[in-house]
């Protein structure tokens, strides 16, 4: 968590934002991949509705974390609120991914607090380092590409479904052709629509076979 946070902090100052925005993003947004993506989006002064839609699509995966995250173990309203706010991919993987382990309320909360502390400390360290060194190293934004490649590979390993990612690639390239200025939202919109169609077709086929 710390090295990735540092890479994020470095990217913030390299993009021309003040170092403390790394802290604000890490505390308020606290969703690693979205934070990386947000740097480019806010530098381009992306309209807020579009930013909201992008956040929704990128972070939609969190919806299903609720089904198996052990929130019932966390006691107190404040504890539960923090636990939901800090329900990142890592926090989910470290808790819900281990069904045999019984976790106490304090254990879940400390685990989440440590995850966030590492991330916030890393991003501030990276941002401060970047603004003190003041070197303009070309190509650091590739961190973002590499991050999404790795996340895509990890997700594919879980899904074991090749047509989905291929469909997504096609939607992305199509969006690049027809709406280069709105590529992100167009590509994701097309992809979600395509998935819905695929779901209906598969269901129809299953019903026909049944």
């Amino acid at each position, binding site marked *: 968590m710390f*090295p*990735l946070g540092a*890479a994020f902090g470095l990217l913030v100052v390299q993009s021309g*934002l003040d170092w403390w*925005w790394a802290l604000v993003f890490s505390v*308020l*947004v*606290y969703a690693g991949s979205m934070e990386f*993506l947000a740097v480019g*989006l*806010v*530098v381009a*002064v992306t309209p*807020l509705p579009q*930013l*909201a839609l992008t*956040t*929704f699509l*990128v*972070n*939609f*995966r*969190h*919806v*299903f*974390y609720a*089904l198996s995250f052990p929130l019932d173990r966390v006691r107190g309203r404040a504890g539960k609120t923090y636990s*939901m706010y800090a329900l990142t991919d890592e926090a989910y993987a470290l808790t819900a991914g281990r069904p045999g382990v019984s976790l106490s309320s304090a254990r879940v909360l400390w685990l989440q607090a440590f995850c966030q502390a590492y991330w916030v400390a890393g991003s501030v360290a990276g941002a401060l380092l970047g603004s003190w060194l003041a070197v303009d190293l070309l*190509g*650091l934004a*590739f961190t*973002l*590409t*590499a991050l*999404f*490649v*790795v*996340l*895509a*590979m990890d*997700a594919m390993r879980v*899904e074991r*479904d090749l047509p*989905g990612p291929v*469909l*997504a*690639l096609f939607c*992305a*390239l199509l*969006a*690049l052709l027809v709406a280069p200025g709105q*590529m*992100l939202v167009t*590509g994701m919109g097309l*992809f*979600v629509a395509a*998935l*819905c169609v695929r*779901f209906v077709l598969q*269901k129809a086929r299953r019903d026909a076979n049944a």
Partner: protein
Amino acid sequence: MPDNAYLMAASLTMFAVTFALRSLPFAVLRPLRDSALIGYLSSHMPAGIMVILVVYTLRGVSLSEAPHGLPEILALVVTVALHLWKRNAVASIIVGTAVYVAVVNLVFV
């Protein structure tokens, strides 16, 4: 360059959407659990969304002009190969980025 008011509004927007996605499902758990479409989307969206984000981050790369996307291709190959081999996310990202930074700063200057 964006001003501070816009940056704050942008941060709050992302906070609101992210927190809603993380908290609302706990309140409306049952209909979600029963919805086959939501289940299908949440298991099939992540990989595809990440693929779209990869394309998005590479949208400025020109294949027709020098260096014809060679630094990107090289760094992508290294990132993918290392991740297939070691499955260590942080190592794959840092080594892939280091290769890219080295190539664009030392080779194609």
